[in-house]
């Protein structure tokens, strides 16, 4: 995708944003593993009975006893890690999802025929070239529209003269406008 980045010198997704996301994920997963370690540490660090027979029986029966504890601790880890990662996804990815949502609203507005504002994203939002490309397109359309209207208005000025000149100028203006519009395909 060198095109969009090279033309505006603004990358679609900044490297800093990607590194920030990876760093937060790293902290998030490390936190989850840390919590899992703490749970297992407390489950396993209970002192064994003092005498030989007691230790023997405790160790023999330990693995079936630990199975549900292990399952519950892994479940807690999974729930906490999934919850915090989901929150991270919503918070971090809104810098991409937000501009998309905003752009879609502007496009809906444009299609409904309502006056369209210039699109701008918040600072820190990603995919900035999208707003630039949209504004470039709308700007070009508006310039063309003004030129076509100016051509027609110019022809209307000749209507102060005789009818034949007026009609000839208007026909000429229409041909010009039609030719100009031919670039749209």
């Amino acid at each position, binding site marked *: 995708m060198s095109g969009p980045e090279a033309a505006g010198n603004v990358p679609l997704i900044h490297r800093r944003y990607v590194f920030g996301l990876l760093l937060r994920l790293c902290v998030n997963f490390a936190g989850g593993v840390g919590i899992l370690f703490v749970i*297992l540490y407390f489950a396993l660090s209970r002192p064994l009975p003092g005498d030989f027979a007691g230790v023997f029986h405790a160790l023999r029966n330990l693995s079936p006893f630990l199975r549900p504890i292990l399952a519950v601790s892994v479940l807690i880890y999974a729930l906490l890690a999934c919850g915090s990662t989901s929150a991270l996804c919503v918070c971090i990815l809104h810098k991409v999802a937000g501009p998309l949502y905003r752009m879609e609203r502007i496009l809906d507005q444009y299609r409904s025929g309502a006056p369209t504002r210039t699109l701008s994203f918040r600072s820190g939002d990603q*995919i900035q070239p999208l707003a630039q490309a949209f504004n470039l397109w709308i700007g070009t359309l508006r310039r063309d529209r003004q030129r076509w209207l100016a051509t027609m208005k110019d022809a209307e000025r000749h209507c102060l003269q005789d009818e034949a000149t007026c009609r000839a100028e208007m026909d000429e203006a229409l041909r010009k406008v039609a030719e100009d519009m031919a670039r749209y395909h």
Partner: protein
Amino acid sequence: MKNPALHPRRTGIRYVSPRFQGSAALAFAVIIATGGAIFWYLVDSAFQRVFPHAAIRGHYAFDSAYDIVRDLLAWHLAGLFVGVFLTGSVLVLLLVAATRHGIGKAVDSLRASADGNLSTPSGAGPIGEFERFGKTIDAARSDTLASVLKIRSEAAALAAGGISPEEYRLRWDELKHRIRRIAP
């Protein structure tokens, strides 16, 4: 003086796009759940082996069960972290690549639109959200093209002549009105 209770501080809007943010969160959840399941299976089978083995060995030079499985647990926890983080990182990079590809195509199509090409589809990509977004852009471009082509054919028909002055004037005004409605 303003009462802060009457003027609450505006918080930033967090847009939630279920197709984009939701699917990413779901993919991360699958990675975490898979990692957790593998960890549980490996550690549980290791515990089934290690504790009976320690019991029959007879030399109990430890105070707790943790002393027996300390290294084993540390390695498995490190493996869980590295495995989940690396897979999550690959997912992040895939998401970024898909975003760059999808939005890049949309940007390309908007730039082509500024040059007059309103008909080539944007082809915005493999992720559902970007595909839908590309279709929205294509629909806007297609509407614009239809409008321009209609005005163009009307202008050509008017310029061809054979219309009474009254009708000509009416259609001329209608044409101007239509042109004004382009990119209002």
